[in-house]
Structures are given as C-alpha cells and as structure tokens.
C-alpha cells in the first residue's frame, strides 16, 4: 500500500523530539546533559588528535598540526 503520508506520520510520531521552552533550559544545563563527561579530557584528546593527524585547525582554526600551540 502506498501511503507516504502514513509513513511520514509514523516517522514523526516515533521521533523522540521534544520542544524545550526557554525557561526549561535548566534541564539542558545539568552536568549529565553535557556532550563530554570531562571538558578537560575532551580538550586534551582533541589536541592529541590534531597533532597526530597533522590536521590544520581540524576542530577549530588555531594553527598547524605541530602540537605546539
């Protein structure tokens, strides 16, 4: 049965998206909602990655891949 609209509706209903009102952003500010468990470790790993891959400004533009900046 060709029912694109039905599939679209199912897809939309199955998504776990919820609007967050501006006054509910306290939930997003919780430590367990952070992308990285430890921002310091994440920064260190990113620095090592950039140095190893010799990638110029891979995550942010901040110099070459010498690992010295």
């Amino acid at each position: 049965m060709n029912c694109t609209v039905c599939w679209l509706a199912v897809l939309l209903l199955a998504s776990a998206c919820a609007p967050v009102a501006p006054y509910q952003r306290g939930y997003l500010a919780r430590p367990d909602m952070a992308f990285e468990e430890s921002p310091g470790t994440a920064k260190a790993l990113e620095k090592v990655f950039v140095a190893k891959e010799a990638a110029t400004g891979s995550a942010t533009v901040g110099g070459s891949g010498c690992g010295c900046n």
Partner: protein
Amino acid sequence: MTSLRRAAAALLCVSTGALAVEVGDPAPAVAGAPGGQVLYVDFWASWCVPCRLSMPALDALYRKHGAAGFSVVGVNKDVSEDDARRFLQRVPVTFRWVPDRDDSLAKAFGVKAMPSGYLVDRKGIVRKVHRGFTAGTAAALETEIASLLGEGK
C-alpha cells in the same frame, strides 16, 4: 487586544496557554505579590548568564524604590531549588522569590527568553516587558519605575 490574539491563536490551532503576555495585558496573578503596588515580575535561574547582572540591578532598584511602593518578585526556573539557593549565596538579593515547579507561572506569562521581566502598574496592567538584561535595561527600568510610581499619586 488579548481577546483578538486569543481568537487568532484559536483559529491557527495554537495553544492559547503559550501566548505571551505583552504590554497592555493584565498580569497573571503571582502568589505572594503585594497588590496595589508597582511590581516587577522577574523570571530568573542560576543557569541564566544575564541573571548575574539582572539580580543585583533589580535588588538595587528594589532597595531604592521599595519604600515608595515598588516591589520585585523573582520567579525561579531552576530544576532544583538548591541551585537557586547556591546562586543566591553568591548573588544575594533582598526581594522575594518563589519557585515555579510546575511551570504554571512561566506558561501563564508565556516566557520567551531568560531572563524575562514584566513591569506591572498599580492597577495590575503590564506596562513594559524586558526580555534579556543589559546595563541599558537597568537604566531604562529606573525611569520606567519612577514614572509608574508617579502615576499613582
């Protein structure tokens, strides 16, 4: 104005509860707010960066104009009240604040930004809405409060 907006919202199938309170609307009731005074309802939270600026500024305004009939009620939007108390230890204020655990006040006012402040006159009508807070907001509030306090005399 309110009824017009509500009718438009009903036509567009938008929840009327989400309508923001604007200038000229009657202010929704806030528990603990004194009646017959010029009132500033401020929505704040510990995670809201400009609140670091707004809370001391509002406290200064409250101390200055409190005796003349101006009061401030802070509506806290933190997930945990402990966060609010920790914030207030660093940024102490003398005005009243109430938690809004079930979001009922935020929904009644239709808060669109943090912080949001509603300046209400002695008759309970919203006369000014401030979304966000800068040094300029504090200066503007100073004159707005003085003019509203002068109205009742």
